[in-house]
């Protein structure tokens, strides 16, 4: 095995201090505007509820393509993220646009099922037309120290994905330490993940900046070793444009320009888009308008 396979240790205090430094960066004026547009373009607009219906998915897909038609020059979001049984509906609704379809799979969000069922879940999502598959790792097996199990499972699912890109959700809120986050990141990356992702959004804490930084550093080390780029998706808990800009500063200063596109970085968020629209609307109209001016699909 490669020498870098041994995960480096992580010092939590140091990680938090670095994050504080990112957050003192003052992003104003044109940097802020461009940053917000980029953040919009990196969003995976998400609905993952038991009560999801075709109607709800269609409405969200329209919003994905038409964030706020009164403001010119807005991008679309990067993707919509739905359960496998809604992929077909989304596919139809998004026809002709460049918005991708991501589908969660592998017994999301707990991941507690057999490998056979997980693989089947993935196949359904891909057959229905998902461009991207968001899987969850088996946290129980990871915490029990069965790293080979976790590795093999990811590798098998990557194979089942075919041409679809695989995002591996570590559910860092259940991993307890940053050392574990780093270890799980390395396992996912070496097992074939195209993206690594913090959380399902069903567990608290979801994405945090320290956790995301550790994952970005894992991506960086792998890139230095292999020249292969891996994407990053923090998900859950990022709801304001200020937070999004802070994540972009962290991305820029950790991985650099190459990652500053929605091909390599995503925000898993449902309410972030509307906060950014509120800020952009302020730039256009000079005042903050009521939230009722922004659609809530």
């Amino acid at each position, binding site marked *: 095995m490669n020498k870098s396979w041994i995960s480096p240790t992580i010092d939590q205090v140091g990680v938090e201090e670095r994050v504080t430094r990112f957050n003192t960066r003052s992003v104003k004026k044109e940097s*802020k505007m461009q940053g917000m547009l980029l953040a919009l373009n990196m969003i995976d607009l998400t609905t993952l509820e038991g009560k999801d219906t075709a109607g709800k998915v269609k409405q969200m897909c329209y919003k994905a393509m*038409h964030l706020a038609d009164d403001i010119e020059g807005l*991008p679309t979001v990067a993707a919509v993220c739905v359960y496998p049984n809604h992929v077909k509906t989304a596919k139809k609704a998004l026809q002709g646009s460049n918005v991708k379809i991501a589908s969660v799979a592998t017994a999301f969000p707990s991941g507690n099922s057999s490998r056979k069922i997980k693989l089947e879940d993935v196949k359904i999502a891909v057959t229905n037309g998902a461009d991207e598959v968001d899987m969850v790792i088996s946290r129980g097996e990871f915490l029990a120290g069965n790293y080979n199990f976790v590795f093999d499972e990811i590798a098998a699912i990557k194979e089942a994905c075919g041409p679809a890109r695989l995002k591996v959700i570590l559910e860092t809120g259940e991993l307890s330490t940053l050392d574990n986050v780093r270890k799980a990141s390395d396992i996912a990356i070496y097992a074939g993940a195209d993206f690594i992702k913090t959380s399902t959004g069903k567990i608290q804490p979801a994405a945090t900046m320290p956790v995301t930084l550790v994952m970005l*550093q894992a991506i960086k080390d792998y890139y230095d070793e292999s020249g292969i780029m891996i994407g990053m998706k923090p998900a859950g808990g990022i709801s304001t444009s200020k937070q999004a800009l802070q994540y972009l500063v962290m991305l820029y*200063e950790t991985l650099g320009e190459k990652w500053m596109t929605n091909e390599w970085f995503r925000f898993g968020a449902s309410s972030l888009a509307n906060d950014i629209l509120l800020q952009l609307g302020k730039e256009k109209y000079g005042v903050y308008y009521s939230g009722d001016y922004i659609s809530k699909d």
Partner: protein
Amino acid sequence: MATTKNKIVKKSAPQVSSVKSVFQNYAPAPESSDHIQLKSQYDLFINGKFVKPLSKEYYDTINPATGKKIASVAKGNEKDIDAAVKSANKAFETWSKTAPKERAKYIYRIARMIQERAREFAVIETMNGGKSIRESRDIDVPLAANHFFYYAGWADKLEYAFPNRNPKPIGVAGQIIPWNFPLLMAAWKIAPALATGNTVVLKPAETTPLTALKLAEIIQESGLPDGVVNIVTGFGDCGAALVNHPQVNKIAFTGSTPVGKYIQKAIAGTSKKVTLELGGKAANIIFDDAPIDQAVEGIVNGIFFNQGHVCCAGSRLFIQENVAEKVIKKLKERMKTLIVGDPMDKNTDIGAINSQAQLDKINHYIKLGQKEGAEIFQPECSIPSHGFFCKPTLFIGTSQSHRIVQEEIFGPVLTIQTFRTIEEVIEKANNIPYGLSAGVWTDKGSKIFNLTSKLRVGVVWANTYNKFDPTSPFGGYKESGFGREGGVHGLLPYVKF
């Protein structure tokens, strides 16, 4: 509608190219200086009043980021020092007998007033000294206030600090402070002196007198009795007069080792007490089991904090050979994200070098390092054409015999050596006349404790660097000086038993 929108957005965002260029340095975010009040001329603060210098002379203090004059400042001489010491001596009679809890009230008041005017202090500190506004705002000014708060708490508890020893104040403390942390060093010196019942004559560094003079304004407003704190600006002769004044009972000096040696000689044979906090050339040691990414951050904080104008800067980096390549690569990449430039911009990481003289000294060492054959690295960052600026600099492949390794540069210049074993690195770390601080980076607690007992330095930081706190003593071994400032230890130099 949908089609026009979709034309705008291709697979990846069309904005990306412009975002790249905009995020390169972020947009300018200058801190406003509208709210500060600066006079065009500053006098000496003696006996509770601002008085004209007996020398009748003034000198210009400049902004090192622009080279432009900010104000003229009184050039105190021997006679001014004499007046200040006499006023302090007179004030000592009542101040030393003032009830400790009353003394504490004044010190608390000063602390709160610094907090209230924190933004003003931060802006002036940055204008006069060249350090980034991020540091003066987040580190210098809050820490200065905290030092006053902390020692205010000790004022009426001295018998707990020194049980059964009946601590008494010494008298007049002559305090000479450097230009790298002008307000913070004033706080480090004044706060424990007042808490223990001494009176003070403070001489700020000639290049950075303004925040000390603003502090004088606060002290005046606080109602502290006249003469308890006197602040005399001036040059080296002014400091010498203070050291040699017969009515000064204690000298507290922070600055260079040569001046420290001069003070030692000057006071030999007198009964003056002295504490010296002098130069340093600290080892920052990275073991192979360290948290590498955080260690890289610690290296950056260790040497580039305050442009490297820090006596405890981690200026000698030791990396275990099996991770050296990786650490150096990461360090170089991290340095590319450092923003060097206008200290008043909130995004600036490395501000201006304090003076032309200091910049010349640093450039001398950068040339010397290249002449000595060390490999130099500087990131391709732009630096302003006016003012005194220096790119962050690495020297790779250095050894103990290089002069850039042996001598204190006091700038953003880091020398890198590798080591193989723990014994080797301890020997090399100690193989220097200085002994102020060191950093150790490892995941193993036992290794940290092994090193803390073997490194001949006053402060060892483990898995962090350049952390300061009023409760923690700070000071050196060997030619880095003696005596401790901060914590309960910081009271000791100001009491007699």
